[in-house]
């Protein structure tokens, strides 16, 4: 990481008797795209508001561009925010909305106009939108105006508070792509709050997963997906399977056994073990796409489970099966490539298998 533009250490925030943030530390590099992810109420929006200066932290230290932000109001911070509901001024035209911060900085009129037009260009908005009011624009266009309004003052950090949650799926995808392109072109640091880990993985350089006021894991999308710190992070993206195992240290790696599997002990390589592994509820993370139906003999080292097909969903490119395994609370989910003839029907007794060496060992 390059020199950090935001350096938050031990940020605590109390709302009355309720502690919303329990000493959160996070560094964001210059030009980096960081996503804050977590379920609602995890403190991600609170953290963003503290960065923006809308909320004062109860404790901890926040530096932006090397300056202590204690007591610095939102108006004098090098951050700009794109709000969840956009918060475009309904009584101002698009040009007035975008140019509002320039007007406050008393930027010369011709220069302001030039920068507003440049923003419009960057956001692919038509010049004749300048005199329109936000209510006269579509949802996607309003989104672009909100981005333009935030970026026109060339902030050091752009804060995005779930700005795409209200859009339909198709528009969301195209705006996500544009946001990523925009970030690449501008080199401004972006901090995105979202509850959608898939969106975070698509866009961010680094992801900070939060849960009830704590940072659970900070890492690249690859880290988060393939090397999740615990079951919470792993379960946050898509559907996954956890197979409870007993783990014992063995040299560099870990030996695991499961009472449900006859194959016995298997060694998991160190890069397949969560760095924050505890003895509390150790389990193997088995991705649905790594499981197969076993008709004949098992492959060497393969773990087998016997069960019954509970349900299947034909998704087109893939078919999802839910297999009820005796001794497991949750049904095992497996994704198979789609086929004309279904490999198994509901109620059929099946044997499934996966390679434990390709699984990932973690704990609660």
């Amino acid at each position, binding site marked *: 990481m390059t020199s950090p533009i935001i350096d938050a250490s031990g940020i605590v925030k109390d709302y009355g008797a309720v502690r919303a943030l329990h000493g959160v530390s996070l560094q964001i590099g210059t030009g980096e795209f960081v996503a804050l992810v977590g379920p609602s109420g995890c403190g991600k929006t609170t953290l963003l508001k503290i960065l*923006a*200066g*809308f909320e004062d932290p109860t404790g901890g230290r926040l530096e932006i561009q090397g300056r202590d932000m204690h007591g610095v*109001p*939102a*108006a*004098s911070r090098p*951050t*700009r*925010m794109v*709000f*969840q*509901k956009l*918060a*475009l*001024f*309904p*009584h101002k*035209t698009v040009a007035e909305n975008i140019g*509002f*911060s320039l007007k*406050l*900085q008393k930027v010369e009129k011709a220069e302001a106009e030039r920068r507003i037009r440049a923003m419009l260009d960057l956001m692919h908005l038509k010049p004749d939108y300048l005199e329109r*009011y*936000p*209510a*006269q624009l579509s949802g996607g266009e309003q989104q672009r105006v909100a981005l333009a*309004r*935030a970026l026109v*003052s060339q902030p050091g950090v752009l804060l995005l508070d779930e700005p795409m949650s209200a859009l339909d799926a198709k528009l969301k995808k195209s705006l996500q792509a544009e946001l990523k392109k925009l970030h690449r072109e501008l080199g401004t640091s972006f901090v995105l709050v979202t509850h959608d880990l898939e969106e975070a993985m698509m866009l961010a350089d680094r992801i900070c997963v939060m849960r009830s006021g704590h940072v659970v894991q900070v890492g690249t999308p690859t880290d988060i997906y393939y090397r999740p710190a615990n079951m919470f992070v792993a379960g946050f993206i898509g559907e996954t399977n956890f197979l409870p195992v007993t783990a014992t240290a063995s040299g560099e790696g870990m030996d695991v056994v499961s009472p449900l599997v006859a194959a016995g002990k298997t060694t998991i390589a160190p890069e397949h073990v969560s760095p924050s592994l505890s003895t509390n509820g150790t389990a193997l993370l088995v991705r649905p796409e790594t499981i197969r139906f076993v008709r004949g003999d098992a492959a060497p080292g393969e773990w087998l489970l016997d069960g019954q097909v509970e349900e299947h969903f034909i998704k087109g490119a893939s078919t999802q099966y839910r297999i009820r395994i005796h001794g497991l609370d949750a049904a095992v989910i497996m994704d198979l490539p789609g086929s004309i003839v279904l490999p198994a029907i509901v109620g059929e007794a099946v044997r499934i298998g996966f390679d434990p060496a390709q699984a990932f060992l973690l704990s609660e």
Partner: protein
Amino acid sequence: MRIERKSWNDPVLVATVAPLALVMVAFLLVPLLMTAVLTFQTTQYYRLVWTWDLKIWTEVFSKPHYWTIMIRTVAMALVCVVLTVLIAFPAAYALATRLRTFKTQIQILIIFAFLTDAVLKTFGWILILDKNGVANWLLMHVGLPPEMLNLLFTPAGTMIGMVYNLVAYPMFTIYLSLVRIDRDLILAAYDAGASRVRTFFEVTLPLSRPGLYSGAVLVFVLSLGAFLEPKVLGGGTSPLASELIRQSFETRVNWPLGAALTVVLIAIGALMLVACAAFALRRTSATGRSA
């Protein structure tokens, strides 16, 4: 939202609208027309004479006395609008943004005061404004000369009563506008670098315009017809239009004159409202679409 234009041929719609339309025609339009018709008649020995001439209108336009009172009425109404809005705005702002804890209690108190009979409230002011009343008593006790205030039976007394009786209207309309303003808009203004004062003038004030305008219109219309306050607190020293009209009908038993003065008052009020509406629409037409 798109408003669909319904047809006259829709029987259900016609049936639903008909009762209200009939009431409006019978009790508003017909009396208005009768008033207008009345202005072209004359009286002789306190009796109405059907003549169809312009005698009354010539009288109305030739006597400056009537116009002094009309102009005074409009001036008092305008001053009343300014004062009520100036008092109501800070109160509504405090209610909407600051006084979260006692908001309900304060609202209940305002509604109580608002719903108390106007006659009672207006007479109550006599106790305060009288030479030997509460106001002077208080001033005396803080060391100011006794009987310093002499407000009872002056236009100022009338104005105090009018403002007091009408201030709740703009307070509620402005309050309703203010609470509808999204808090994020205020934060967005701060975020863009605006100070609190600047944010107020750039965001809060423009967005509270609908409430400001509707409150102002309510106060203006109601104070054009102010009757009680000039009589009780003004003491009849500087009568307003309603008193003039009452006198024409009751004391002078000159119905055509009363009707003509009524038409003049309605015309002045309507003209001013149309002018205000044109002004307000020009400034809010674009933002109105978002609501």
